[in-house]
């Protein structure tokens, strides 16, 4: 295990605690509400976000395949990592479109506890996706320059798996529950 991998594993552990705290607050707030979601607030786009979830999962699968091929350093690896990053960027872009629509419909941070929780939980995840995207772009650059080390690539993959694996749980809690 390289120091890069160990560092990211510790980072992911702290991030898991961060999101566990957010989810706990969300669940307690939701359990205390008489009606959830509040009747005067817009409904979340469940179907569109399900499609977006599939996009992010596909990104994780592509990076997993890239990781499996990394030992052979095949030419396909060069193509898979940018595609994984592109799908991650598409996820963030679609989330942004969704947020703009929700804000237009009246769901804001201050419109209700529902809105506050939605933007904090989903927004925190979106920030992590952006950080992961930056890491993937860095990996892509190193890859094309032939300077990508195995430890760095593995560390970025672990972070991206965390970001991808967390989203279905958040989607289920915030959109479906």
């Amino acid at each position, binding site marked *: *295990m390289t120091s890069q991998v*160990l560092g990211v*594993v*510790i980072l992911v*552990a702290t991030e*898991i*605690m961060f999101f*566990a*705290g957010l*989810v*706990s607050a969300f*669940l*307690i*707030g*939701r*359990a*205390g509400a008489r009606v959830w979601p509040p009747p005067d607030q817009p409904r979340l786009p469940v179907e569109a976000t399900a499609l977006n979830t599939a996009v992010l999962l596909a990104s994780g699968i592509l990076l997993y395949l890239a990781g499996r091929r990394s030992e052979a350093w095949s030419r396909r690896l060069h193509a898979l990592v940018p595609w994984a990053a592109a799908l991650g960027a598409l996820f963030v872009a679609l989330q942004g479109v969704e947020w703009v629509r929700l804000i237009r419909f009246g769901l804001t941070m201050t419109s209700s506890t529902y809105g506050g929780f939605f933007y904090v939980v989903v927004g925190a995840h979106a920030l992590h996706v952006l950080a992961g995207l930056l890491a993937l772009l860095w990996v892509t650059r190193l890859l094309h320059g032939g300077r990508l080390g195995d430890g760095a690539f593995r560390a970025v993959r672990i972070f991206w798996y965390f970001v991808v694996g967390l989203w279905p749980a958040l989607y289920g809690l915030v959109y479906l529950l």
Partner: protein
Amino acid sequence: MERPTRRRPVAALSGGLALLLGPAPAVACSVCYGGSEGSLLVYFITGVLMSVLPLGMIAAIGVWYLRSTRPRRPARADG
């Protein structure tokens, strides 16, 4: 004349008891103590989860680290 150091344990004990018993009437959090039965149950479950999760993760990281640093057995040469 009594030495002041003898009074210290009594004062410390009294102070400790006051700290333990004093906050009891202040359990007024609207979620933890004034909420519905459902929110109390969720509060309990998430409290347990938040307590167990870090210990579980530390254990998992420890096991993973030990496994990854364990020297591999040399392959047996059959025949």
